[in-house]
C-alpha cells in the first residue's frame, strides 16, 4: 500500500496509468491534505530540477588525455577476436579428439560375431613419441595463457 507521499511523487514523476493519474488529480483537487502535500513536493521537485552540477578543475581534460596517452589504444572487441584463431584452435582440438577416438576404437576388440570389423589396427606408438607429447602439452599451455591473458584483461576493468 503506497503512502500519500509516494502516490504524489508517482504523480509528479508521471509514473502512473491514466486512471491512477486521474484519481490522484481528483484527490489533489478535493482533499486538503493531498493538496498541501502536493504543493510541498512540487516545490521540492522544482528545487531539485534546478540542481547545478560541479565543474572539474580546468586542467582535468588535459590530465585525462595525458593518462590516456600512456595506454594502449583500444580496439573493438570484434577486431580483437580474430575468427581464424578460433577456427585454428577448434581444428586443433577436433583433430586431437578424432585421433584419440580412432585410437580407442582400433584398440577395442569386438566379440560379437555378427559384426565384421575390418582390421584397422594402427601402431600409434610410432606417432606418440615424447616429442609429440611435448608439442601437444606446449600448445595446450600456450592456448591456456592466451585465454588467461584475455580473462585478466577483462577483469582489470
Amino acid at each position, binding site marked *: 500500500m503506497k503512502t500519500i507521499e509516494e502516490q504524489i511523487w508517482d504523480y509528479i514523476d508521471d509514473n502512473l496509468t491514466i486512471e491512477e493519474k486521474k484519481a490522484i488529480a481528483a484527490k489533489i483537487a478535493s482533499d486538503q491534505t493531498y493538496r498541501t502535500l502536493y504543493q510541498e513536493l512540487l516545490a521540492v521537485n522544482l528545487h531539485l530540477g534546478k540542481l547545478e552540477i560541479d565543474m572539474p578543475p580546468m586542467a582535468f581534460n588535459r590530465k585525462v588525455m595525458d593518462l590516456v596517452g600512456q595506454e594502449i*589504444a583500444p580496439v*573493438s572487441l570484434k577486431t580483437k577476436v580474430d575468427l581464424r584463431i578460433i577456427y585454428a584452435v577448434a581444428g586443433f582440438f577436433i583433430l586431437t579428439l578424432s585421433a584419440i577416438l580412432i585410437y580407442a576404437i582400433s584398440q577395442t576388440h569386438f566379440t560379437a560375431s555378427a559384426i565384421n570389423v575390418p582390421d584397422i589396427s594402427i601402431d600409434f606408438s610410432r606417432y606418440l613419441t615424447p616429442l609429440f607429447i611435448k608439442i601437444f602439452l606446449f600448445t595446450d599451455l600456450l592456448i591456456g595463457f592466451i585465454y588467461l591473458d584475455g580473462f585478466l584483461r577483462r577483469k582489470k*576493468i
Partner: protein
Amino acid sequence: MQQQETDLALITAVLNGNTAVYSELVKRHERFVFTLALRFTKNREDAEEVAQDCFVKAYRALGTFRQTSKFSTWLYAITYTSAMTALRKKRLTTISLDDEEYTVQPVNSGSAHEADAIEKKSAYVYLNQAIDSLLPDDAAIITLFYKGEQSLEEIGKALFMEPNTVKVKLHRARTRLKEKLQYLLKDEVKELI
C-alpha cells in the same frame, strides 16, 4: 538521441585509431562524472582522482562497450565502481543522515546579522549542502535522476541495483531532502498555495 549518436560516432572514431577524439567525449561528460564522484567522495580532490580513473578505465574498455545502452549509463557504472574502490581504499566514513553535524540548519539564532547572512546565501548552496548530507547512494540517485537524464532502469544499471530499489531510495532521499529544505521551501509553498 542526437547526443547518443554523436557519442557512438566518437567511440567508433577512437576505436578506429583516432584516439585524440576521446578528448571530446571527456569534455562532454566530465562535469557529470565529476559531480557523481563528488557525491561519493565528498571532497573535490578525491572526486577528481575518481573521475580521472573512470575516464582511463572507460578508455581501456571502450572496445567492450556494448552499444545497446547509453554511453553515459555505462560511464556512470564505471564511475560508481571507481568511487566505491576509492572509498574502500580511503576507508572514508560515510555520513549518516542522522548525524546532526551534517544536517542543514539555516536558522539557529535570532540575530539580525546572521539572518542577513543566511538570506545572502543562495538556495543552491542549501540544496547542495542538503544533498551532501545524504548517503552517497541516495545523493548519486538524486543527481542521476534530476541532472543525468537517466530513467530508474538506467540508474539501476549504473549503480548495480534493481529499478525498484532505486525507486525506494529515490523516495527516501526526497523525503529527507524535503525535511532538510523545509525552512527554505516554507515561503515557496505558501506562494504555491
